[in-house]
């Protein structure tokens, strides 16, 4: 079986991480010190948070953490509803994305940590740590309720359980949690760093790739290293490594731009229906709502007259805020689209009036 390059060349140790090397060294010191705190690892997607976390785990527990199994666990809510959630675990750690459980994230978080903390280490070997690690991903999606629960749980079980929290943005994370963790910022790698990494990979793959193409790829991915490596491999597979070749833009990005064009092209019920289909499709293919909002707004704003931009953004922010308050994302996205169409149409009419 041939691994994708992104997986094949993923660094496995803190000492082999290619960038933010000073930070990697400091994380090593932290592990050595023995008194390991809860961590809050944050940064944009594709910047390498997950890789770094796996390296930390390996530094803590050794190669045992690489023997991963995936397992579904079932948690029973107080109202006797059963929630199933996927986990990835080793003998030393368990990883879940609590927001998979939707509004039941609180129950899942509490239940899981309690279980872990109460289960004693089974395989006793020497230099065993006294704790297991729970990795929670996308904690910026946790409900406030779950965050408050988490805060209490993390103090209560701090003896034999450490948390590594992973997030894109710190904004929605309550101060009480932030202050109980050591923050680890993982900024996106620079264009030069990305270039160095992909040229290294290409060398190992015996792939001759022109420096200009490397640079072009690195510049096109907006700091997302994962994407850069994927594109690079795709170019290789297509057998097209011409320096002036076109680089693929993510399908969903293209699709959102098309959606924006539909919206500004004509403001009508029919078009609203078309846009609805688009939004459904985007959500169904797992594009996070905030990304859809961000790309859509960017595309729309660039098509707007400067005069109406403030109001458009005011509305965008209002509808997005409501979206996070409610649970049905699509409703608020649609509402925003309709509102936008109205503003846009009125502005066009105003312009015509002046003639």
């Amino acid at each position, binding site marked *: 079986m041939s691994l994708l390059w992104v997986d094949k060349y993923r660094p496995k140790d803190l000492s082999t991480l290619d960038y933010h090397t000073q930070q990697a060294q400091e994380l090593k*010191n932290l592990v050595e010190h023995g008194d390991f705190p809860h961590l809050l690892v944050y940064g*944009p997607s594709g910047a390498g948070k997950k890789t770094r976390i796996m390296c930390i785990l390996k530094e803590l527990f050794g190669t045992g953490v690489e023997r991963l199994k995936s397992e579904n666990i079932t948690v029973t809510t107080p109202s006797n509803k059963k929630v199933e959630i996927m986990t990835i675990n080793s003998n030393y750690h368990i990883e879940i994305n609590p927001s998979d459980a939707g509004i039941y994230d609180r129950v899942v978080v509490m239940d899981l940590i309690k279980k872990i903390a109460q289960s004693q280490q089974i395989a006793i070997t020497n230099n065993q740590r006294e704790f297991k690690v729970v990795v929670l991903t996308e904690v910026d999606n946790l409900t406030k309720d779950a965050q408050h629960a988490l805060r209490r749980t993390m103090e209560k079980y701090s003896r034999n359980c450490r948390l590594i929290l992973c997030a894109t943005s710190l904004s929605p994370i309550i101060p009480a949690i932030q*202050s109980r963790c050591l923050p680890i910022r993982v900024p996106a790698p620079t264009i030069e760093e990305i270039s160095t990494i992909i040229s290294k990979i290409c060398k190992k793959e015996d792939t001759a790739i022109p420096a200009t193409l490397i640079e072009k790829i690195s510049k096109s991915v907006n700091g997302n290293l994962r994407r850069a490596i994927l594109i690079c491999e795709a170019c290789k597979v297509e057998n097209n490594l011409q320096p002036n070749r076109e680089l693929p833009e993510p399908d969903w990005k293209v699709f959102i731009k098309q959606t924006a064009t539909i919206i500004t092209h004509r403001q009508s019920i029919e078009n609203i229906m078309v846009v609805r289909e688009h939004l459904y499709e985007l959500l169904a293919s797992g594009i996070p709502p905030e990304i859809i909002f961000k790309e859509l707004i960017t595309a729309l*704003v*660039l098509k707007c007259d400067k005069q109406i*931009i403030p109001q458009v*953004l005011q509305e*965008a922010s209002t509808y997005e805020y409501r979206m996070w308050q409610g649970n049905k994302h699509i409703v608020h996205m649609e509402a925003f689209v309709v509102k936008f169409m109205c503003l846009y149409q009125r502005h066009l009419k105003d312009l015509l009036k002046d003639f």
Partner: protein
Amino acid sequence: MQAFLKMGKLGEPSASPSTSGAPKKKTKNLPWVEKYRPKTVEDVVEQREAVSVLQQCILGADLPNLLFYGPPGTGKTSTILAAARQLFGDLYKERILELNASDERGIQVIREKIKTFSQLTANSSRADGKLCPALKIVILDEADAMTHAAQAALRRTMEKETKTTRFCLLCNYVSRIIEPLTSRCTKFRFKPLNQSFVLERLQEICQVEDVLINDDILNVLVKESGGDMRRAITALQSCANLKGKGSHITLENVYEVLTVVPSKWVNSFWDLCKKPSDIKEIIQFIDDLEQQAYPIQKVYEHLNDFLMDSENIDDRLKSEIGEKLAESSFRSSCGRGDFTNLLDFAVHTQEILTEPLERRRMQALENAKFTTILGLS
């Protein structure tokens, strides 16, 4: 203060009645905030009023019900714990009940616990034969997180147990505590700590723990902790652990552990907001900011400082921008809308600063009249 530091380090019993009853084996891994907690009320810095009243209480061997309020890390918990230690000596662990108001769901649980606790008998002498007050103290942390109904229920509990039990409520915002409760307590406000006190304390810790840090960097750490001693001590310990023994803590370390946004980023953003910049430029900037993963809430805090300090912005405009800033920052904390909210803030600030007020008023009126009906075509 020097005495407590030494004692804290070695964990030795001393001649003073403030002997620590804490287990000694774990001192190595004890977080510094615990290790360097004041052992006596005299060790508490800054909070003069509370300290002097408590000193009187310790002499008189009695306590009123207390309410301590103020920002985090200013010594509320430490003060009452130290007082309890001095009142009860070795017995202090048995004589206090620490409850976290937001800990247990519902007042029922809290009341049960308090009831059981206050029915325990408290002797008026200690194991060593010294006298101590026949009292117990219930410490209710985060009292402002309790609902008003729960607070009302607590009031009855407080009255019932007055003979044997004193209450000490701790909270950040006194305005969230109902009047019948506040009126039953002696209130003390805990001020954010003066930077010089925090600095002094940290310097002492650095000495004892062999931490290498230059004074100007330590000063930054103190400043960025904003008068919160817990934050300052935790940050210092994190930096020290990241560095390992023998290397100096750098400015970057301090910035990272306290999630500081370098001022050049905030400066550039504020500049973009103040002039009629191109929307593309602003979008690009926010993108870059997100790539760097700097916490956006910190950006808002800085912006607020800039706004307050700018002398060439009219007060009325300032208040308009301030309102928008509050809205954007609040909305950011409620979901994952950093991008939209920051862009919205930038564009509005720009509009407020560059468009004449009259025109914006007219526009607002127009917008208010406008209803969302799509003219179908």
